[in-house]
């Protein structure tokens, strides 16, 4: 191609080529000039050339030649001898420090300084973010259309209805909208758009509904949230040791070791590989996200494990969210077996109910309120220890949760009281023969923090 163009000398490219070829022959000064000459000028020169059509080729050739005429050369010499150009050439090191950055050619002035935040009010939404083991952040927005619809449906009771954030503890269950472990309501003001919800337990899954509670006790949902899981705040109470072998490019399933070990090494122990089912069963109770991913995989590919794409997951979530009525939260059902892997001579080991941190250690439930400008703050952490004693073979329950007893029948729990929180502490003990039940009801409360400025 290039050769052809050269031969015909008809296109603009060939002219530029020609120019480049001839330049060194004529004068080395010309070359220097070409370097010192600002880029813009070159382009300005090229542009009119580009406009010339092939027919005018003969006219343009002389123009090229004029560039080499003595007149121009003189000018170039003049330039070189003038003080400013001298500076440019001689002070090479300083010019090397500054490599011109290519600027967009002839940029129009465009105003891009706008920093108004987009308006989010046209869509109803409710989202949860887990902040730490004890706090979940919820934010929401109710679109006017949703409100109008609610008004239409609720009729007269709409105006008396309270705005309520209903939190569902959905730890380890396949939530269908009714079977939450625990549900509690927080009354929020109609103007509020965000809330920090305190949860007295770590390692718990939540989802929420924002709705209107009428005087009759009906709940009209306006928005449903995503699922979150709060982090664990203590050591896990599961001590099973599973192993995995991963090398670049190859990954095997995890395994447990069976048989007697010699000393501290693996020698003499057999590997028993776990199936994907085992791991699923092991973790499905804890992590909704993982449960979802694994469930998805299994659903699609059976035991031939393949990873579903994110889109699948998101889409299915979108789909699930849009379902109406009591089915709106229906998740993929997982048959989580309670059986865990046997580990060698220890015999069959059963991993029972998920122990959601019986040994609560406190991070200091009080939220920090550091004054922004003034250097003043006041922190108060409150913790509550509940302890008791019963027959060693009895069962003690706190709400839905069974409390493990020490061998002598004593037990204790530690709670971090959240700021402005109320904890009902209802305990019941059931005798081993299930013939007798005793209940002790108490509660813990921490009253509000009062902020007062300029009180003197």
């Amino acid at each position, binding site marked *: 191609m290039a050769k052809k163009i050269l031969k015909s000398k008809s296109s603009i490219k060939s002219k530029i080529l020609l120019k480049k070829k001839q330049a060194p022959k004529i004068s080395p000064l010309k070359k220097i000039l070409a370097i010192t000459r600002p880029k813009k000028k070159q382009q300005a020169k090229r542009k009119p050339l580009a406009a010339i059509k092939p027919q005018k080729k003969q006219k343009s050739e002389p123009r090229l030649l004029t560039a080499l005429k003595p007149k121009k050369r003189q000018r170039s010499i003049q330039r070189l001898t003038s003080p400013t150009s001298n500076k440019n050439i001689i002070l090479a090191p300083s010019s090397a*420090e*500054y*490599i011109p*950055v290519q600027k*967009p050619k002839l*940029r*129009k002035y*465009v105003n*891009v300084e*706008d*920093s*108004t*935040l*987009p308006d*989010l009010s046209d*869509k109803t*939404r409710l*989202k949860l*973010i*887990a*902040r*730490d*083991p004890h706090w979940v*952040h919820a*934010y929401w*927005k109710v679109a006017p259309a949703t409100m109008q619809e609610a008004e239409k449906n609720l009729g007269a009771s709409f105006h008396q209805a309270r705005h309520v954030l209903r939190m569902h503890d959905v730890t380890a269950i396949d939530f269908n909208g009714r079977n939450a472990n625990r549900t509690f309501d927080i009354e929020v003001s109609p103007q509020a*758009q*965000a809330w920090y919800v305190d949860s007295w337990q770590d390692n718990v899954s939540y989802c929420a509904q924002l709705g209107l509670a009428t005087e009759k006790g009906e709940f009209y949902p306006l928005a449903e949230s*995503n699922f979150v*899981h*709060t*982090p*664990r705040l*203590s*050591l*896990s*109470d*599961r001590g*099973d*040791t*599973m*192993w*995995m072998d*991963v090398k670049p*490019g190859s*990954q095997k399933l995890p395994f447990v070791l069976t048989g007697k070990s010699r000393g*501290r*090494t*693996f020698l003499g122990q057999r590997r028993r590989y776990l199936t994907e089912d085992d791991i699923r069963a092991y*973790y499905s109770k*804890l*992590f909704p996200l*993982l449960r979802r*991913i694994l469930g998805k995989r299994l659903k699609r590919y059976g035991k031939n494990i393949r*990873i579903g*794409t*994110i889109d699948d997951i*998101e889409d299915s979530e979108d789909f699930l969210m849009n379902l109406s009525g009591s089915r709106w939260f229906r998740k993929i059902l997982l048959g989580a077996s309670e059986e865990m892997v046997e580990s060698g001579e220890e015999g069959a080991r059963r991993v029972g109910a998920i122990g959601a941190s019986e040994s609560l250690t406190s*991070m200091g439930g009080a939220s920090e309120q550091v004054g*922004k400008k003034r250097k003043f703050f006041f922190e108060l952490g409150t913790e509550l220890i509940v302890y008791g004693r019963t027959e060693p073979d009895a069962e003690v329950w706190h709400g839905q949760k069974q409390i493990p007893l020490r061998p002598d029948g004593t037990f204790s729990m530690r709670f971090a009281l959240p700021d402005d929180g109320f904890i009902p502490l209802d305990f019941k003990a059931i005798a081993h023969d299930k013939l007798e039940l005793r209940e002790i009801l108490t509660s813990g409360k921490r009253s509000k923090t009062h902020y007062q400025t300029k009180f003197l």
Partner: protein
Amino acid sequence: MLKGYICLLLHAHLPFVRHPEEENFLEESWLYEAITETYIPLIQVFDGLIEDGVDFRITMSLTPPLVSMLQDPLLQNRYVRHLNKLIELSEKEIERTGYDSIYHGLALTYNRKFLEAKDVFLNRYQRDLVSAFKKFQDLGFLEIIGSAATHGFLPNLQVNPSSVNAQIKIGVAHYIKTFGCEPRGFWLPECAYYPGVDQFLKEANVRYFIVDSHGILHADPRPRYSVYAPLYCPTGVAAFGRDWESSKQVWSAKEGYPGDADYREYYRDIGFSLDYDYIKPYIHPDGFRVNTGIKYWRITGDTEYKEYYRPDLAREKAASHAGNFMFNREKQIEHLAAHMDRKPMILAPYDAELFGHWWYEGPMWIDFLMRKVAYDQKTIKCITPSEYLFEYPTNQMAMPSASTWGWKGYNEFWLEGSNDWIYPHLHHAGEQMRELVKKFSLELQGSSKKGLLRRALNQAARELVLAESSDWPFIMKTNTMVPYANKRVRQHLSRFAKLYNDITNNTIDEDWLAEVEWRDNIFADMDCAKYYIQNALPPQKQRIKQKAKIYAHTRD
């Protein structure tokens, strides 16, 4: 006898601050200060170690925003201008302190330091400091790990898995483009892990990431070796936990090394203490005083009165602190090794900017430490996480707990009253981005980058990731430079919203787009939007090369 390993990890990150529209932008000096005080001194240390044949290992994360800024010609030019000014100031200082034996010596030291920095920057590495780090990695002394696209705080973004995915995949793709191989490890911004994030890392072929101590300790089931050996997530990605003892020794402002009385005081700068007329040309052009980087005083103690800085004393202190650190690690390893069936590894991650910028003698300390570990004892050795995984491919499997290395150990620093307003917007924009990409997925296929729509889509993705950076909520919480962080988040979100509207209404304003592309030019040559669409994997061709490298790095 070799009993265990220590892994020093430096996390280098700065938010993407680049303002071509303004000649002197105050926040850009974060980068210039970090280059002079941290990155160049570290490069000098590494070069020195290699020259002397010291076998050392350091792991480092260089985040995409930092790499982009270090490779940006505009900022490189501005850095040279900044450095020239500093040299000029230091020359004036030499003159000014001519009759003062103490300060004159210090002025000379600073002058030499700046000239050396200029030499390293211009002559040795031709402005491209990233190439220096790449060189150390290629030589096998440094292991550079990847990080998220713009240091997005992933737990708070997990409402939209596609946003987390894009943060990780863009980060990995940028790493491959920069360093020519896949990242073996990944630095989760702020060490913020949540169960599930490892899935995306797995897809990006990352072998390990770092979590804070309690991420490992609270793993389920319980970790057998605490933080002294990695855990595999059920996905097969390894999690290394941070060791708290070694962290405290260096991090802690009170008990830590950097607070020693002999070290240089950071908060006494001549930019604030000298005559206004004298210092005026070297502070901000608008006339307010800023740090110049020339500081003549040492910490002295908890007093207003400060003694002058003695480089010789500080150097001695750095050496003895390095010795102390090593001795403590030896004892720690000896103790741990007795309880483990494998060699324990102590992972000590720090912010890279701590060394040199805040702790002036930090790079020197690293230098001493690496030399001492190599020659003065036989109990511990330096290692990188991938080398450890090569030696011990079989590890315990458990699910680490959600955690961060921030204040109180969870997400509170990035999610509280001062900064929680950004999340509804970030999540909303994340949803919109996915919607756009779904709608125009055909536009994103093929290799033509010219189409206006495609340019707009990619720019929208860039604006979104820039808004997601964890630095903005961090700044809002620390209550310094808040207006700037607010402005950045609002501006990126507003630009994103305009792009979204323009794309959906088919009214893309090319001039406006060109202007925004020119300003927010991070990942300018990458197709960012496609990472929102599917499991877009980074290019695979480097994989074999990468494998060969891992083997090459492992010692006998």
